[in-house]
């Protein structure tokens, strides 16, 4: 297909779990690469050394401030990519990297890791540890429609991506505390349990129908807040869940 977009996977300090999630769309990944996107950069995946121009950079991991190459790479990424996506908790919020204190071989002095938003502007955030294959799929399809779709599809994609763009403009910290501050303390929690399901480390239990976070377990991935229906919710968009689901499934259908 001629009208493909170009995508790169930029690997900062991360565990490769985000990349595994991208691959976990299984034949979905082939479909994406066949029909929608050329992978123009990616360690071990594309034989390209220097970060090239691209439409979308999916950045995994945080930036180690003591690693000057990483710092340069993230700046280059910003300069070369039209859309920078913070893929996963580390790129978005620091996630477990927040707990790093250095001392590891063979670079014991590497101890300060920041989410990429501390150094560059980020356009879209996909929280979670790891981000889910289906969330990545939905964003990739929507990003494609935003760049190459019909006018209607562009409008839909813009609406879909807006909350994830708002997240990117918002706080660079994540915690169970987000639910306390912005949902529960604001009188908005209605006890659905989505946050508890979303948490990858089971830090959230439901007590008498309300979430209780064990903050010592929280790794700061941002999934609970983003999943909560009382963080962001575009009712008009949600009402279209059926056609949107069909659109995404249609886009991913393999013959």
């Amino acid at each position, binding site marked *: 297909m001629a009208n493909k977009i170009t995508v790169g996977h930029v690997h900062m300090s991360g565990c490769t779990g985000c990349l595994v999630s991208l691959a976990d769309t299984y034949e979905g990944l082939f479909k994406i690469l066949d029909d929608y996107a050329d992978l123009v950069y990616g360690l071990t995946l594309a034989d390209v050394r220097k970060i090239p121009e691209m439409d979308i950079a999916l950045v995994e991991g945080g930036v180690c401030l003591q690693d000057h190459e990483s710092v340069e790479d993230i700046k280059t990424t910003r300069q070369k990519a039209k859309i920078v996506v913070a893929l996963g908790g580390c790129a978005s919020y620091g996630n477990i990297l927040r707990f790093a204190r250095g001392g590891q071989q063979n670079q014991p002095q590497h101890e300060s890791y920041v989410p990429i938003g501390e150094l560059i502007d980020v356009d879209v955030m*996909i*929280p*979670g540890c790891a*981000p*889910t*294959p*289906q*969330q990545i799929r*939905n964003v990739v399809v929507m990003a494609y429609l935003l760049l190459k779709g019909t006018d209607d599809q562009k409008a839909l994609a813009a609406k*879909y991506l807006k*909350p*994830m763009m708002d997240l990117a403009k918002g706080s660079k910290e994540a915690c169970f505390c987000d639910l306390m501050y*912005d*949902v529960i303390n*604001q*009188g*908005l*929690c*209605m*006890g*659905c*349990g*989505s946050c*508890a*399901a*979303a*948490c*990858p480390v089971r830090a959230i239990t*439901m007590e*008498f*129908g*309300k979430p209780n976070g064990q903050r010592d377990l929280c790794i700061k*991935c*941002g*999934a*609970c807040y*983003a*999943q909560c*229906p*009382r*963080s*962001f*919710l*575009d*009712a008009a*968009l*949600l*009402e279209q*869940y*059926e056609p*949107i*689901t069909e659109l995404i*499934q249609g886009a991913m259908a393999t013959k």
Partner: protein
Amino acid sequence: MANILGNYKQVISARTTDREILRGSQDGGIVTALFAYALENNIIDGAIVAGAGDLPWKPEPIIAQTREELLAARKTKYTLSPNLQLLKEATRSYGLDRIGIVGTPCQMQAVRKAQLYPVGMRDVPDKIALAIGIFCMENFPYQSLVQLVEDHTNQKMEAVKKMEIGKGKFSVYTERGALAQIPLKVTHKYEQPGCHVCLDYVANLGDISTGSVGSPDGWSTVFVRSKQGESVWSKAVAAGWFETKPMDQVKPGLDLVNKLATEKITKNQNYLIARGSYGVGKGLRNPYL
């Protein structure tokens, strides 16, 4: 306020023909019979319902994989059952590929958000096979329910057979046949705060949604909404699982549903606006912006 009743393909009055289910259900046994039908016909592998918890009338979400488990979870518990809590677990520990889930309108919103924005819901989006919404005006923290039942109607929680909200009253039926009622207005201050920003009464985002309002006692009002909902409903009706009546031939009918939905949404929209300037030059957060 367009579309207060949501999109739907048909609305009918119905009750299940399965006497065993109907006997212990809240209204027309729609939820339990639909899940039982779907389970029997391999449309779902299990359903997330409000099962029994550690205290009387305190629900605990469970994954029902048998008819018996579905039946044991019948009846409305007027307190939070965080059914979404098990949505990811259903695909993992329980290995379900086709999940049924029942929930209030806000929980149906959470289900659809989990499908469109599965931030922390790995492998969930494509596995929702039947989401049944139940109408909902408000919900209560468990401790509120205890206060209403034990302090206001003077009944013991463990002695209660059924609770019901309708016709302006909160009604408590006991195992020994007593009926204790209080006016609904007594209950308002005990509502969970999160309900006051809720803009959905009839679970607009369920595949099917149901409630008692609009239909005669023992019957339910049923909105069939999505393609999947239509498919399951028409097969279940064809298989004789439900008797139905056209909505315009039952009393009080759809007008009452419309009236209550409008009242709820108008009240809560006004509250949302009021929240915007709750302080001095400061407001509380609007979750829909």
